[in-house]
């Protein structure tokens, strides 16, 4: 970091895009470690209850998981493209991409809703009598499944809300070709949500 940059920063102390991005990344690390703690718990229990985990994971529908993976990957694509569009000056294209991202986020949540309600229908939910009859390893598996995908879904919802704000900010011109850091930071958040799912998918749906 050289002196000229610092001097420039001081002249516009209320507008430091690089600083904003550093702050966003640092925040993403806390999210990463937050999920990391749960991945650590997962790792320990998978180590302890290997066979039970493999057995319990058969209850999950790989197809739904796969669809949701593709939905999130595609939403990441549209998110990234919306920034490029904005920076190239095509505001309407950018808005379209943001809208698509919001659409995919909703699709993910709807999918998740059906998946969870199917589980609940089978009596597999925390504290249910059905669950308590299972071996301990499977109880823990479902405990982790609900908490980890639940917290991930919560992050999708937060991301969704942010994206709705971004849609209106871009529309009103508050976020524009020159000042796009807010959209970029929202994008960073959205991609992180995607990355978490990239790991959740094989760990819960694909283990055998």
């Amino acid at each position, binding site marked *: 970091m050289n002196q000229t940059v610092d001097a420039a920063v001081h002249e516009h102390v209320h507008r430091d895009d690089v*600083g904003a991005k550093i702050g966003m990344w640092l925040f993403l690390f*806390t999210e990463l470690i*937050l999920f*990391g703690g749960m991945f650590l718990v997962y790792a320990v229990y998978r180590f302890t209850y290997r066979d039970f985990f493999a057995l319990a994971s058969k209850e999950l529908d790989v197809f739904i998981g796969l669809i949701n993976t593709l939905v999130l990957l595609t939403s990441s694509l549209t998110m990234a493209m919306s920034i490029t569009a904005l920076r190239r000056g095509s505001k309407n294209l950018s808005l379209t991409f943001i809208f698509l991202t919001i659409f995919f986020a909703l699709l993910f949540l709807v999918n998740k809703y059906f998946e969870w309600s199917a589980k609940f229908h089978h009596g597999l939910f*925390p*504290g249910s009598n059905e669950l308590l009859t299972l071996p*301990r390893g499977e109880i823990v598996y479902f405990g982790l499944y609900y908490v980890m995908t639940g917290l991930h879904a919560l992050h999708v919802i937060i991301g969704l809300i942010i994206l709705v704000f971004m849609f209106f900010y871009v529309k009103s011109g508050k976020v524009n070709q020159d000042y796009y850091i807010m959209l970029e930071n929202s994008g960073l958040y959205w991609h992180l949500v995607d990355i978490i799912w990239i790991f959740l998918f094989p760990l819960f749906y694909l283990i055998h």
Partner: protein
Amino acid sequence: MTAINVHTGDNGSNGNHLDYLHSPKKYKGIFNWIFSTDHKKIGILYLISMLTFFAVGVVFGFLMRLELISPGKTIMEPQTYNQIFTLHGVIMIFLFIIPGLPAVFGNFFLPIMIGAKDVAFPRLNLLSWWLFVIGGFVALISLFLPGGPADTGWTFYIPYSVRTSTNVIPALIGAFILGFSSILTGLNFITTIHRLRAPGMSWFKMPLFAWSLYATGWVQILATPIVGITLLLVAIERWFGVGIFDPALGGDPIVYQHLFWIYSHPAVYIMILPAMGVISEIIPVYARRTIFGYKFIAYSSMAIALFGSLVWAHHMFTVGMSNTAMWLFSLLTFLVAIPSAIKVFNWVATLYKGSIVLEPAMLFALAFIFNFTIGGFTGLMQGALALNIHIHDTSFIVAHFHYVMFGGTGFGIFGALHHWFPKMFGRMYNKKVAKIAWVFLFIGFQLLYFPLFIAGYLGMPRRYYDYLPEFHIWHFISTVGSWILITGLIIMFTNLIIALRKGEKAVANPWGGVTLEWTIPSPPIHENFEKIPVVEKDPYDYTHYEELEEVKN
């Protein structure tokens, strides 16, 4: 850099700018404070709220010691005692020591010391204070709920924390919110240090307090989320009966302990690192010479942050870990002692050939070194596996961490308070009274905690409401010590509060410091600097004192 005006009569202001306490107001009355994004005002807000919580924590500590003055019931029931030591721990750790230095003095002085107008994200800074207050109230609200506050100890160990009928969830959620407050502070400081250093202030021209906050910031960001998620999981477990840690549902209490300490051990370094930074600021000023081994102190801060994150399982040597984990964590624990030792040696060497004056802040700094050294050495004893087995979970540990946390960080906070008080409030306190308070604090502290080392080695377990008659004498001395200590606290704070209203006006540079905060008026103006300074010299360049005397001779 502007010339340093030592002991000039004025407060350094040229009269064109109002100080931050009287700067143009957007809101009226208290709202001018609680909605202010000025880093200095937020620092003061933190100071007030932190000291309020500290007072509550002290009262709980006092009651605990009173109960323990003799075996059997003295003033309270066992259940009350268990709840009080839990609250004492939660308050002192999450509401006093962790925010104590970074959030109060870091907020106030970091931007000034690196030559910036404010932190990188002023609004986030305000949010973090709000989270702090909200978290504090959530944690304490259980005092007024049926069932009473949690009785789990501040560690919330599984499975007791999912079995007890007391209000554990508020404490957990409170700690979770406080964790985020701490994270936001760390995030803000790291970005501030990366982006807002004044022109010419390279990394190695930064004051050491800034270095220690940088190291602390990384620990705050990379370790705090772990405890956040862990406590959240316990809360979810209590709410919904999800099987995660509870052994009855297949959980493993040990994995909880791992996760808890992955944060809570580094948290000790979140507490002590800024205090080390403060000591590195205080000693050069009152020894009137440059700090010895600047780079080694700066690097050792980073090394402590790094190694400190790798030693958590030394809190778990008796839980039955694998032998590999035992020797690995023991060895890593010993390694973290090295950078700490380097700091102590460099501080002592800074006194050599200085021109020392024992102002109150300096006394606190010297007491810090003494207490921290004892705390560090007794820490080594716990790193040694065979010995740890014996003294783990005894009052030896209680004494050890109070020597580090209170004798170290606590005295560091008091030192910082006396060092920067004139700059923050533009008033000077009575130095003689401050020194008397220091004597009470120092003697009371030793009397309060040293006997616990002995009792602990003799086999006095911790978190005991009642004890065997053979430990009576040590507990008795300790309780008497607590009275002396509290007397010292009362003298000290009375002195400072009186100074707020009646103290003489402070000059810009009462101690003869050379870091940037001493170049601006006391109290500082709204955006700190009329013109952002250009830094050329090293942070502790006292050569002009050498020259000054040469001219005289």
